[in-house]
């Protein structure tokens, strides 16, 4: 079992980063939009900590937590959100389009799932020993390509872990209006073993994810983890029409709060201070970083058009 203090540190890094991102967004210092994972940090830390750094992660529009948990540079993420040349994607990608070796994200619902399956096929053929984990939300289950991908992953026996974060809302639309049937049965229908838990306790998620990851690696077959969770923040910004009483009720299950009870006050304060320091430094550096060079953009275009 991973050290509780370390789990707390990792969750606080994400929590404080996301809170700062929202603050910067409100000040108009970020471009586009941002989808925070406040309330869902235990999924990222719990599952991704069970992977090896050499494993491959494909994330989605709500990917900052996944990125940080897989070892992405916080400064490069802050700089990306601020549109700076030092951003992890040089300011071209923004929040939803992040890449460093072993990590990929894209903002189109569902489309990343076949890409992840293809990566698993590549790793299998290379005998690299790496597995691929791909994160899907509940809303993504409306996309047909997801089911095509489940079918092929199972048919061809590919080492991919499908991680479902059911945060109960597809943007503003509640699950009940969006979703029929059952998550687990969807996987089982394709012969994919699935494990389902409803918790925000990161230690439980880690304990569930670890054997699932091992099974994917050892058996070279897909598996699924269905994590029922709750998004405490808005989908992005200013688009939260949920009943405040409902949100309040879920605050009891805030993953940071749940883990807090397992740490002493000084341990928690230390973790908090460390995360504060890192976030503050990341944004301080990012906001003084240079803007991307638009001349280079034209060079890149010429390169792209070159036959």
């Amino acid at each position, binding site marked *: 079992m991973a050290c509780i203090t370390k789990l707390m540190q990792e969750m606080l890094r994400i929590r404080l980063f996301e809170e700062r991102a929202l603050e910067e967004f409100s000040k108009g210092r970020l471009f586009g939009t941002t989808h925070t994972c406040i309330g869902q940090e235990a999924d990222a830390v719990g599952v991704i900590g069970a992977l090896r750094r050499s494993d491959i992660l494909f994330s989605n529009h709500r990917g900052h937590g996944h990125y940080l948990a897989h070892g992405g540079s916080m400064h490069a993420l802050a700089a990306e959100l601020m549109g700076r040349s030092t951003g992890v994607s040089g300011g071209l990608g923004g929040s939803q389009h992040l890449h460093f070796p072993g990590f990929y994200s894209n903002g189109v619902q569902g489309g990343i799932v076949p890409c992840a399956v293809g990566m698993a096929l590549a790793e299998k053929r290379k005998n690299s020993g790496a597995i691929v984990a791909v994160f899907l939300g509940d809303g993504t289950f409306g996309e047909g390509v997801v089911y095509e991908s489940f079918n092929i992953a199972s048919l061809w026996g590919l080492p991919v872990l499908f991680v479902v974060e059911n945060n109960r809302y597809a943007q503003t639309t509640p699950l009940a209006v969006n979703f029929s049937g059952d998550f687990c049965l969807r996987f089982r229908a394709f012969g994919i073993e699935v494990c389902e838990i409803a918790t925000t306790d990161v230690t439980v998620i880690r304990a569930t994810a670890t054997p699932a990851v091992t099974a994917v690696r050892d058996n070279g077959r897909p598996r699924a983890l269905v994590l029922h969770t709750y998004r405490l923040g808005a989908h992005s910004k200013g688009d939260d029409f949920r009943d405040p009483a409902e949100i309040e009720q879920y605050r009891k299950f805030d993953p940071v709060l749940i883990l807090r009870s397992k740490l002493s006050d000084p341990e928690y304060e230390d973790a908090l201070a460390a995360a504060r320091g890192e976030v503050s430094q990341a944004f301080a550096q990012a906001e003084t970083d240079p803007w991307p060079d638009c001349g280079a953009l034209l060079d890149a275009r010429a390169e792209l058009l070159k*036959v």
Partner: protein
Amino acid sequence: MSTVLQALNEAMHEAMARDERVLFLGEDILDPYGGAFKVAKGLSTRFPDRVLTTPISEAAITGIAVGLALRGMRPVVEIMFGDFLSLAFDQLLNHACKFRWMYNNQVRVPMVVRTPMGGRRGYGPTHSQCTEKHFLGIPGLRVVAPNALCDPKRLLVDAILSDDDPTLFVEHKLLYLSRLGQLPNLSHLEVTASNSASRYPVVSVRIANAPRAEITIATYGYMADLALDAMWRLAMQQEVFAEVIVPTCLSPLDIEFILSSVQRTGRLLTVEESSVSLGWGSEVLSLVAEGISKSGRLVARRLGARDLPIPSSRPLEDAVLPSVEDICDVAMQLVIKGEN
């Protein structure tokens, strides 16, 4: 004498033999069937572990190819009919073509999507369309069309083994039957690959020792066969001489060779089998109009399929798709118009 189909089949064999990273995915591509149009013939027998016949899941297999390419493979996908490319569009537009760019040039996506395209077989509205027009102008996507004048084998091998960006490779169904090196009156033609240094040449054809060409016909793929027929008819029946310019890379398009021909002839006819509105010819004409010198004159027409779905019945299909007669008629209209 070998056909374009044989050349493309040989290209697949050669690419898979030369590079173990080449994986081939598609529907019904295993022997003995060997794919709906037989480009896949023999591959699954020779490379059983690298030829993956797939469920009817165009979106997923295109996405799987993207994932393979991102992790060091060089996948080739066969989409059984070009009409079904619509199912793979999100994977091409939002994934294959954007990763290199939006990840700041840190990745490449070397993949080829091959597909039979076009009508004249009576397959009707959903199995006869030339859908390539919908894939033109997408930043990061190469759209390549072989023809019987170029070396289709080299074209496909290079697209698979040497091009590190996603490529849509458009194979007209009737082109499969076209014979290589067997053009009518070949010995009387001047055929030049204008930019032979490029992976994707532009082929120029004119009748050897003919008088100055009065019209430029820009076309691609199978329509080049029809354009060459038209070029002979115009010469023999009307004493009107044409230059036919045939790019193999439709997008991004190097307009230089078409433009320099139009500078000489003053007349441009674009010919394609896609529906004519807002298509390849529209872009060619725009680029020529923008690029033509101040003293240059220009009369132009676009010829393509009528803006309709493709009918099944032969006389109806013929009425919708451009023919050799149509090319000759429109060319003559332009020649007469340009004389005023």
